[in-house]
């Protein structure tokens, strides 16, 4: 289980590389979005590993917040207002 968490953290470092280097704004946005989905699964694995069942609530909240943030940035790039 610990090995799986370490492998997922390695994937998060790949996403961090793309978020730091990415040539355009949507590159960084999709890298941060994928990284937050990775943190969702890391948190679920930690809830199973350390037997802390409340950590899974944190993972659901993280998924919701990253979805709203990415959708707002996509609307901004498209050049429309947020209530359109």
């Amino acid at each position, binding site marked *: 289980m610990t090995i*799986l968490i370490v*492998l*997922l953290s*390695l*994937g*998060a470092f*790949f*996403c961090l*590389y*793309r978020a730091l280097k990415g040539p*355009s*704004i*949507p*590159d960084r*946005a*999709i*890298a941060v*979005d*994928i990284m937050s*989905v*990775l943190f*969702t*699964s890391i948190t*679920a*694995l930690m*809830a*199973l590993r350390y037997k802390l*069942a409340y950590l*899974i*609530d944190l*993972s*659901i909240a993280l*998924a*919701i917040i*990253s*979805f709203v943030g*990415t*959708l707002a*940035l*996509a*609307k*901004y*790039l*498209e*050049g429309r207002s947020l209530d359109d």
Partner: protein
Amino acid sequence: MISSVLGWISLCIGVGFTLLGCLGLVRFPDLYNRMQAATKCVTLGTCGIMLGVFLLSGWGALGVKALLCALFVLITVPVAAHALARGSLIFGVKLWKGTVKDQFTTDKGGPSIIEEQK
């Protein structure tokens, strides 16, 4: 016993797909390739991990919430990536030079982006 074995297999499949998706995020040549690789692989991988957590923990609070989180990720991540791809194509992010087809702007009636770049 059998659900424990199935849960570990599902966890390993999920972590493998997620890691390959992140590798695709580093290695692919342009934004749209990177976006499709990362989004599809990470969605399937996260659903596999959540299914594994459900199979390993059983019908408790943790397992049912993990299934709910898998359903939520399965709905929201492709929607967010599709909106971001459309927004970045309108914003003007260049396609890769080996791209062969661009149906979005030709359906809109405009000139193809690929022809402009050549």
